[in-house]
């Protein structure tokens, strides 16, 4: 297992805007990410949770180079992939960064044999003989717990869980160091979810992989992540070590998310649900974007957007409930 102290991913003040509006209209820019700053260490899993429209998948797409951010910087393994030499730097790290998508049905070409799909990154990187390539495919299949003869079969012959194993095998084909997993188990049944989460943890132990694990299901993230970042309407509202976040959520939104998770415990006293819905990106609320739903809203929250501040070692939160305490102290 490669042990280095290198940080895999450094994200600083990342912003992203998309043009909105169809033909004939002047496009208005919609900001979907607001000044995100976070790191992912070597062999670490950062969980990224949030509801639809929070921007979590956009973060994943930027980190693998599928989208070009409109502001801020991203460094992968110490190389800037957003600055002047972005093309050259990205080319240098491209094979070390891979992606596992949510839907294993859509991620595999139904007309291509599984072995060929898995080998495609190897072919593109072009550094293997045919025999090495076939050996590698068999090795990868074994690694993800599929029979060796799977290579000659087609995706429809596999169940959803098995297809996700194939997608993971393909992501591992170039021995990456960092894998973005975007809702990798959301489309799977509960009994399959456990199998895939266990596989991802085993692979991490074995190869020292770093993961950005994007999910809306906080229980899955709890099992796999070491640290968790919570997003709401394009901002990170809290980052904390896994145990701290679940035991003592600080941001009112984090607490609301945890309270809203149904638990397999009929004796639990259900907390009150928060009202309202995620705001439209076209007309975001002023100040703190959560203020329209927050049970602790103060006048200041409507005017001033809170910054993500470190309030304890490894604990960052963007909420005036905590910044207020800090500014009144002498």
């Amino acid at each position, binding site marked *: 297992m490669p042990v280095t102290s290198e940080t895999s991913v450094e994200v600083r003040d990342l912003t992203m805007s998309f043009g909105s509006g169809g033909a004939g209209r002047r496009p208005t820019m919609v900001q979907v990410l607001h000044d995100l700053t976070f790191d992912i260490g070597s062999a670490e899993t950062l969980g990224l949770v949030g*509801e*639809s429209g929070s921007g979590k998948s956009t973060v994943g797409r930027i980190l693998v180079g599928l989208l070009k951010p409109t502001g801020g910087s991203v460094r992968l393994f110490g190389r800037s992939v957003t600055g002047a030499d972005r093309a050259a730097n990205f080319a240098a790290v491209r094979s070390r960064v891979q992606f596992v998508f949510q839907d294993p049905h859509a991620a595999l070409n139904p007309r291509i044999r599984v072995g060929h799909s898995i080998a495609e990154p190897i072919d593109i990187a072009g550094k293997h003989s045919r025999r090495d390539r076939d050996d590698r495919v068999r090795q990868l299949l074994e690694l993800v717990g599929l029979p060796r003869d799977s290579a000659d079969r087609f995706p429809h012959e596999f*169940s959803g*869980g*098995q297809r996700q194993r194939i997608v993971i095998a393909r992501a591992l084909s170039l021995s990456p160091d960092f894998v973005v997993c975007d809702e990798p188990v959301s489309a799977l*049944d*509960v*009994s*399959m*979810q*456990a*199998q895939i*989460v*266990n596989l991802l*943890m*085993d692979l991490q132990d074995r190869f020292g992989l770093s993961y950005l694990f994007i999910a*809306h299901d*906080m*229980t*899955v993230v*709890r*099992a*796999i*992540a*070491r640290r968790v970042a919570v997003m709401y309407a394009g901002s990170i509202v809290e980052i904390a070590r*896994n*145990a701290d976040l*679940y035991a003592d959520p600080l941001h009112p939104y984090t607490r*609301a*998310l945890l*309270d*809203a*998770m*149904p*638990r*397999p*415990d*009929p*004796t*639990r006293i*259900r907390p009150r*649900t*928060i*009202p309202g*819905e*995620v705001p439209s990106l076209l007309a975001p609320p002023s100040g703190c974007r959560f203020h329209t739903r927050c049970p602790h809203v103060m006048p200041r929250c409507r005017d001033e957007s809170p910054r993500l501040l470190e309030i304890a070692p490894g604990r960052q939160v963007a909420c005036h409930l905590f910044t207020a305490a800090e500014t009144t102290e002498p």
Partner: protein
Amino acid sequence: MPADALVSIRDLTVQFRTDRGWVSAIEDISLDINAGECLGVVGESGSGKSVTALSILRLHARGTARAARGSIMLDGRDLLRAPERDLRRVRGGDIAMVFQDPMSSLNPVLTIADQISESLRLHQGLSRAEGRSRAIELLDLVRIADAPRRADEYPHRLSGGMRQRVMIAIAIACRPRLLIADEPTTALDVTIQAQILELLRDLRAELGMAVMMISHDLGVIAEFAHRVVVMYAGRIVEQAPVGTLFSAPRHPYTEGLMTSLRGRDIPGQRLGSIPGRVPDPDESIPGCRFGPRCAHVEAVCRAAVPALVSISENHDVRCTPRSQALAPACL
């Protein structure tokens, strides 16, 4: 049939036509839905929970699906054999349904009021204007703010959570005695899911209707149901009151599901998982269909299909070794 059973399903087997002939999607389903209760039906994909629900209203396509055996009794009538005309009175009248995807369940070219009042005009003969004012009342009932304005809007103007509220308003328009909710919150975000579950709980109490809640999510079932039916590969494998099921599950499959969820509380620890996968409906498996994935499988499990056996009051299990060990001895 117990006195308070509203709907009583007995020995229901539903088959679908495939290239290899008729294949059973559900087999020997027997369950009662009591008046006013929340019955939870939980299972993974392919377990047959939606097929069971759709059978109650006979919503399967004719020609490709058939009820090979069994009966579904409502008020002394067998819905499986009732003429289509009678069934139309039941659908949306006595029994209504809410589906998973509110985006595709609403008609994009009709206003919200038109869609809510459709069943009122059909079942109760209301005029268009009467229908609209009832629709506004119903929108209030499902906690949609500014109901008079919303009533004249089209579905694309509403968020997913609001659309699901509209679907619920349509379903409860004729005060059904049974609401079948098939994964009603699966497509929604978690904070919206909590709101919709709360709404359904409140409406059930206010209107005194029974709810059949179908979900793959044991959390949703734990928080909603009084009684739970667990399905696996087309059969009921366990049924019990919610407290019993979660504190003392007896079927190895139910146990496996609970373990795979509860282990998630400990970071970094491998999750308890059930090996293998759910079999296809046409896969022939001798004896217990869970046998190939079961850690406690014995010779007797492969020898014969286990029966659903009562092991204590209101607690039934379809597992031969477990029911032999736990069932009260028959004298």
